[in-house]
């Protein structure tokens, strides 16, 4: 018993020692670069859309940017390329809307063997579900509070 504990402790130390120290500075840099690049890509699509439709309002343009980035992300996920980018970029890939799209697509692909209803249908929202549920809840709270303010 004592032996096992000692071994576990040693193993943890060993893991700590052997884990490659890419260092947090590098991963911060990667997140910054990849996140910034995805946002720049989105801005570029926005500029293209605005060049063709100068009358389109800002909200519609940013919705279109999201749609384009989501589409690209899901296609990259399907081809298995996105995992490699995500491994490099860390938070730089999951904080932009691409992370939301990737979580839905990869969970759908991962759990398709469990069937249409409980596989794809429910596991699809394994990560995205909390985001949507919390987001909708906050938006309703904001809306109701704003309605109350409008009343007075």
């Amino acid at each position, binding site marked *: 018993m004592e032996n096992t504990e000692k071994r576990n402790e040693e193993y943890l130390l060993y893991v700590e020692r052997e884990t490659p120290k890419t260092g947090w500075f590098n991963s911060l840099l990667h997140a910054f670069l990849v996140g910034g690049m995805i946002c*720049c890509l989105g801005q570029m699509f926005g500029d293209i859309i605005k060049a063709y439709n100068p009358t389109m309002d800002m909200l519609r343009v940013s919705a279109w940017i999201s749609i384009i980035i989501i589409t690209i992300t899901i296609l990259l996920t*399907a081809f298995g390329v996105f995992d490699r980018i995500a491994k490099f970029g860390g938070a730089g890939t999951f904080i932009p*809307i691409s992370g939301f799209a990737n979580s839905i697509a990869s969970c759908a692909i991962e759990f398709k063997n469990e069937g249409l209803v409980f596989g794809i249908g429910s596991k699809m929202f394994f*990560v995205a579900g909390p985001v949507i549920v919390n*987001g909708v809840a906050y*938006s309703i709270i904001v809306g109701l509070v704003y309605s109350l303010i409008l009343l007075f």
Partner: protein
Amino acid sequence: MVLGILMYLKVFFVGGLICMIAELIQIKTKITPARILVIFLMVGAILGGFGLYNYLIEWAGAGASLPITGFGNALARGAVEGAKTNGLFGAIGGGLMATSAGIAVSIGLSYIVSFFVSSKTKKN
């Protein structure tokens, strides 16, 4: 032309900075990505509710609107705009209306894609 390049620098800086803060939180506290997403979403929704996040979007464009904080902001702004134009109905449904296209594309396309692609680890 110079203005255009400056805009892209701002987009890169703000978008990168938001992602970098998330990465820092993940490294220092070992919080799972899903929780970080929800925390950032909440921050965006709060800032959006007070109308502050729109200033950031005006300044940095997609650098502010593409990260998940921008998603939270869109939900909150949708509810506020809905409350202004459609009363209580808009206050409840406005958030989802503003973000509906993005969510619908994510779900629909993922559904289609999952029929054609199988995961490498789980093959029948």
